[in-house]
């Protein structure tokens, strides 16, 4: 009985791992193909099944004038926009979450939990609902196709996540910590900055991770609110997908775009194994 269970367990884990890895392996193999090896039917192993070519990878570095896409600039744009939006969201979100966790607010029937729900409810709105008014608003402000405009929009997307995670987290940090700091002569800002914040690093890491993931992987707003000046990575990659789909360069760019977040996966796992993450998520 126990043996059967163990067999089934490893079988399931094995099958799921294959499912997770399959598209990556396929992309890796495809990125070394050229037009002929793609249209000849499905092939897998370079040198055995097809003659490898580096065309897919070279296209990513060539300028558009030479028939490439030059992925470097969109890559840089994506990093700048994601990092600044995440930073602003976490900064403002953490302050708000601290207030919501420690102090009581009351205005008529509105209480702390209602304010928290107001933050989280911003995630319910589908991007499409906001896209048209955002388009008009950024147009009026002259911020269409600019980094500032995108960062503004992403702050709205990411701050609810930061608030959601940090409220939960601060609720689990004992109140005695701040009270002791206040008795020792700190003012409220110092108590927050010098005592509570250093104790909340795991929470900040988790909130940061979620903000990074959702910012880095957004396509819709970047697609609608930018044209040529500020291209983000997902938009640049999807733009490759024109009349003839260049499978090779699409695959190569997909692999390149995943790379920075694999590092994030390792950081998350480290905190998960230490058991710190469990405090950050309910």
């Amino acid at each position: 009985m126990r043996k059967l269970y163990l067999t089934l367990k490893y079988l399931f884990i094995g099958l799921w791992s294959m499912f997770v890895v399959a598209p990556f392996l396929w992309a890796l193999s495809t990125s070394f193909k050229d037009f002929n090896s793609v249209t000849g039917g499905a092939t897998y192993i370079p040198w055995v099944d097809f003659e490898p070519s580096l065309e897919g990878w070279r296209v990513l570095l060539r300028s558009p004038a030479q028939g490439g896409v030059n992925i470097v600039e969109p890559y840089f744009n994506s990093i700048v926009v994601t990092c600044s939006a995440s930073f602003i969201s976490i900064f403002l979100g953490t302050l708000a979450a601290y207030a919501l966790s420690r102090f009581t607010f009351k205005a008529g029937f509105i209480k702390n939990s209602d304010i928290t729900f107001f933050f989280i409810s911003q995630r319910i709105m589908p991007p499409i609902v906001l896209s048209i008014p955002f388009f008009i608003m950024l147009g009026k402000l002259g911020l269409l196709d600019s980094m500032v405009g995108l960062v503004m929009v992403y702050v709205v997307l990411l701050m609810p996540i930061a608030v959601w995670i940090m409220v939960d987290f601060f609720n689990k940090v004992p109140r005695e910590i701040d009270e002791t700091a206040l008795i020792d002569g700190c003012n409220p800002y110092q108590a927050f900055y010098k005592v509570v914040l250093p104790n909340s690093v795991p929470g900040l890491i988790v909130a940061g991770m979620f903000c990074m993931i959702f910012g880095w992987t957004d396509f819709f707003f970047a697609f609608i609110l930018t044209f040529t000046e500020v291209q983000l990575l997902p938009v640049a990659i999807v733009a490759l997908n024109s009349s003839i789909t260049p499978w090779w360069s699409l695959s190569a760019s997909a692999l390149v775009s995943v790379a920075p977040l694999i590092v994030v996966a390792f950081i998350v796992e480290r905190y998960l194994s230490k058991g710190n993450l469990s405090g950050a998520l309910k």
Partner: protein
Amino acid sequence: MNFKHKYLFLFPGLLVLIGILIFPVGFTVRLSMSSWDSFFPGLDYIGLENYFRLFQDDSRFWEAFGRLSFLSLTTVTLQYVLGFALALMVWKDIAFKRFFRVLFLIPMMTTPVIMTVIWKTFFHESLGPVNDFLNIFGWNPLWLSSEILSKVTVIIVEVWQWTPFMFLLLLAGLLSLPKEPYLAASIDGAGPYRTFIYVTFPLMAPISIGAIIIRLIEASKIMDTVYVLTSGGPGTATETSSFYIFIKGLREFQFGYSAALSFTYLIIMIISLTIIAKVLVRLMIRE
């Protein structure tokens, strides 16, 4: 604790959020009462006409909404079951625990729209590896251009992408469970199956509900996957609400009407998510 400084903590974030959102939300409501389209761009006032049109003549919107409900409920259920199973398996000591934990997280880190392009080549009907394999048995299913299979393909891609999210939340929950109930269960001689039913599952219920609701919120916005994989086709077989609003608004430029669609959709979503949350609480948390 109470300070006069407390507003200095809350207000920067709250005001920034409201400041950025007040125009888009207010404008959507106002726009939904106008006939703004590509022929007559302008904010005229036509009352609730767009809403009458939506409730009386637009069956395509309601079909899209039905399809969205089907797709999001199916994918979230699958994600929950699979994510819970995977979290349980790497919870206790197994060989290469940390390796599997990182591996299972990775799909969430990828950009949906880019991975979907890869999936599209993966399921390509004549050049992709899936049909290459199935051809051995003489099958050649039309993954992207048949009514039923195109939905299955969308579900497979969504499950691949977002099961890790469920997995992460549930694993973090499992790792923070108290030890005492398990001691009590083992003293009472409960086997692994009964321990799960009577100890693990009830303890995990609040986390499960939170995870399911958040995934439902995110899954109902499904758009990127459909846009790249099938563009809503064949016909309207995979057209979801977001995609239909996208077509009306940014393809046919019926801004007024699409604002009415958006606002109606938003109201329906808030109501149905509240109901789902209440039902889940009643089903999963027994006294």
